[in-house]
């Protein structure tokens, strides 16, 4: 049983590891990731599902973690930006963002990279239109998007999307 009244014990898998935390059912997944699991790579932008800064993967699907109540994370498999690099090696998308200037201030970057990685997992060789659509829920106020699209295109070329 949870220690605090009204809280639930939530068990899930985060970045390949089992995780457990206590949370009020309607707390935002965004907040518990940052506060309980100290995964502060996930950012808050608008807090209403418009900007994509808080994007994470839940059971393989891209979601806005500001719109997911903590209770629905119970039993879920989650991936955050901290789980994208494997064995100390940056993912091809992360490398491309570095090489092609896909990141500037950095607030949108974790969500942007997760949206791109999620796309490449589904479509290893996406068209430019598919890239634009897949990232349409992730707002960036610095780059004007062109460098971001170039980064994703470069990541596909480099890896065939397999990372």
């Amino acid at each position, binding site marked *: 049983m949870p220690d605090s009244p009204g809280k639930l014990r939530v068990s899930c898998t985060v970045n390949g590891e089992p995780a457990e935390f206590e949370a009020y059912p*309607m707390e935002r997944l965004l907040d518990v990731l940052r506060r309980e699991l100290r995964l502060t790579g996930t950012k808050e932008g608008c807090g209403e599902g418009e900007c994509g800064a808080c994007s994470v993967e839940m059971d393989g699907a891209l979601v806005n973690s500001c719109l997911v109540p903590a209770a629905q994370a119970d039993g879920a498999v989650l991936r955050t930006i901290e789980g994208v690099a494997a064995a100390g090696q940056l993912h091809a998308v992360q490398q491309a963002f570095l090489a092609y200037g896909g990141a500037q201030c950095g607030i949108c970057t974790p969500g942007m990279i997760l949206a791109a990685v999620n796309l490449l997992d589904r479509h290893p060789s996406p068209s430019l239109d598919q890239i634009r659509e897949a990232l349409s829920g992730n707002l960036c106020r610095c780059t004007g998007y062109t460098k971001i699209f170039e980064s994703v295109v470069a990541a596909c070329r480099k890896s065939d999307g397999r990372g």
Partner: protein
Amino acid sequence: MRSVVPLYEWETPPDLASALGRMAREPGAWKPFAGGTDLMVLLEAGKLPHRRFLNIWKIGELRGVETSADRVSLGALATYTEIRRHDVLAREFPLLGRAAAETGSVATQNRGTIGGNIANASPAADSPPALLVYDAEIELVSARGSRRIPYANFHTGYKTMDLAADELIWRVHLPRGRSGWRQYYRKVGTRRAQAISKVCFAAAAKIENGLIAGARIALASVAPAVLRSRAVEQFLLGRRPSPELALSAGAELARELAPIDDMRSTARYRLRVAQNLLAEFLETLG
């Protein structure tokens, strides 16, 4: 102003019968919670009126898309993503796929459901105009049993609907057989993605010997609820698509709409755009 999160209660019924039992015992006390794409926005704004939530997201009986000889039935929890990926829907009900593709972003589409879009009852919702064009039926379920009604009769006014306090939206049925019809969907918003519509327009028509032999016209964001324009449908019957017809049908449309000025647009702009979209649709029939 954020809501005070510890105030909210939450229950996850294991199946449909348990969910309906809970709603029957305390009608109106429990708000069904699916993908949360509308409710969590209200939470963030401190405008969520409900205190207790029934988590229906994992209830199998509300999921899936089933195809039979004469209809396609969507579970209330069918997400926009599932709708976009479904072969039969893509082939025979393309307007629904278009609506799903124009709703929010990938992340919204992964969590937003057709049942939620209907129950949220926004006059600006993207999928209802498509459902109206396809003569959808909506099946409601409660501990008392289930009932089916034409979707066109479901919304009764601004955010009001024919849904009892103990009922859940169960399925949406789409009769097959519209494939021979010319179909059209267009959403006009501030930008291509992530926009809420200023006007949303869905239509279909059957053409025989150059004349309109059947028509469905439906709109969002131009009235207190999504609207099927029966007067324009009637008006078009037996007529030949032409620029003159577009003008007179547009005048007919103006009599049926009740657009308003709000933060997204003006009544005047909405009416003009709705008439222009009707004209564009008629142009595709010529």
